[in-house]
């Protein structure tokens, strides 16, 4: 299997662990990822909060480049990019006039035919046997809660992905890998997203609730599939501890890192040493 791959800005910087671990896991499972050339930023929330045309034009430019290469689908691991791509595709499907206008803006003739995929989709559809057969490490004692955040599933009429209030794809992938997945109440709660840089005190409250519930159900770690969720939960955890007088040290891991461990990859091959909340203690229980 071969997928063209749009990493997005975060996976080349703050979320490079996601990029590294996704590639390592794909390699192990026989999936080939090919980064698309000269991709540009999807615009994230700043674009749709400022201009509805810009919010569509930026993802459309990337999709047009993929289409030009006669490629039918693109893999988008960042939940925010994934949502922006899906939004653009949805609006353009609905409105042929808008498609014409966007073609003028990006100076390209583009038909909006590319299918947008998330790694959770390709790893949960038809890959369960392959994953089960590839497990090398027993992680049945490793207790994880799956945190999906907002943008993977909402709004459902656009995202068409999993079940919006109670998604299960990540749970299933990790269960197939032999991980002890726990149920909890905060699967799709918001972490505050980009407010982290401007209104930090708000996100501290939101993430504290998430940590408290994860701890209450007995989780060793929180698995995520979104760079922004990861940076808020990992980089702001100590700050939230200080504000609410807690002592959480819950490792936040990309689901690809958890899956990678089960597939027998070494922690350094999954970049588990670059998180702010150390994973050493937890890993020493496994190794």
């Amino acid at each position, binding site marked *: 299997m071969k997928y063209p791959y749009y990493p997005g*800005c975060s996976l080349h910087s703050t979320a490079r662990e996601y990029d590294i671990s996704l590639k390592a896991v794909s390699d192990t499972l026989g999936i080939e990822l090919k980064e698309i050339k000269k991709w540009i*930023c999807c615009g994230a929330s700043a674009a749709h909060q400022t*201009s*509805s045309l810009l919010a569509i034009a930026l993802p459309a430019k990337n999709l047009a480049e993929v289409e030009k290469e006669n490629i039918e689908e693109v893999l988008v691991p960042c939940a925010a990019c994934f949502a922006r791509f899906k939004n653009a595709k949805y609006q353009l499907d609905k409105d042929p006039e808008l498609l014409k206008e966007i073609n003028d803006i*990006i100076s390209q003739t583009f038909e909006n035919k590319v299918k947008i995929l998330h790694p959770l989709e390709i790893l949960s559809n038809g890959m369960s046997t392959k994953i089960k057969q590839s497990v090398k490490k027993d992680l049945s004692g490793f207790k994880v809660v799956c945190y999906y955040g907002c943008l993977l599933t909402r*709004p459902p009429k656009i995202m068409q992905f999993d079940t919006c209030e109670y998604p299960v794809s990540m749970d299933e992938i990790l269960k197939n890998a032999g991980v002890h997945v726990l149920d909890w109440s905060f699967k799709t709660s918001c972490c505050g997203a980009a407010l982290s840089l401007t*209104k930090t005190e708000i996100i501290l409250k939101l993430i504290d609730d998430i940590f408290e519930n994860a701890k209450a159900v007995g989780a060793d770690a929180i698995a995520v599939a979104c760079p922004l969720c990861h940076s808020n939960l990992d980089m702001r955890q100590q700050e939230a501890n200080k504000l609410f007088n807690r002592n959480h040290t819950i490792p936040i891991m990309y689901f690809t890192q958890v899956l990678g461990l089960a597939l027998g990859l070494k922690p350094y091959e999954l970049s588990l040493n670059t*998180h*702010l909340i150390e994973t050493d203690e937890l890993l020493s229980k496994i190794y």
Partner: protein
Amino acid sequence: MEELSHNMFDWDFANKVQKMAGNSINLCFQCKKCTSGCPIVFQMDYSPAQIIYAARLGMKDLVLNSNTIWLCASCETCTTRCPQDVDIAKVMDAGRILARKEKLRAGVREIAIFNKTFLQNIRIFGRLYEAGLTVFLKLRTGEIKKDLDLGITMLKKGKLKLFPSFTRVFEINRMFSRIKKLEHKRI
């Protein structure tokens, strides 16, 4: 709360929001599911349901000066749960766009600055240059010391790139200019 008077209702504003929101906001019957699901409502001056009602009545000053439209994290919980298919998150976007158009002082200044700085950054570099974004954000908001330790830790962990790359900058610049012209006429 100030007293209601007829000149508070700007029907032109109500129509604009209506158009920008896609589906009709007049379908709202104030069940307040948007408000009960909103993760940020505890910090908002008006709840999402109040903003929708005010927008329907054309209460432009209330909507555009609220902190609600800026604090909304675009988590889409409201839009997902609305039984009447009102796109509440899109109304918040419309509010921000119109407030900017009217050159109003943003209800939450840092967030407006963040969006502006973010877009300027990708217009220059094509891809987000995070270290640059952080520096410009600090200079503009005046919060120089905020997150300084965090930034240093991130650099040490290799999570921030020191130098930017440039991708399709001429094309992006052209896209931004075309959009600006088109939207100037429209909104």
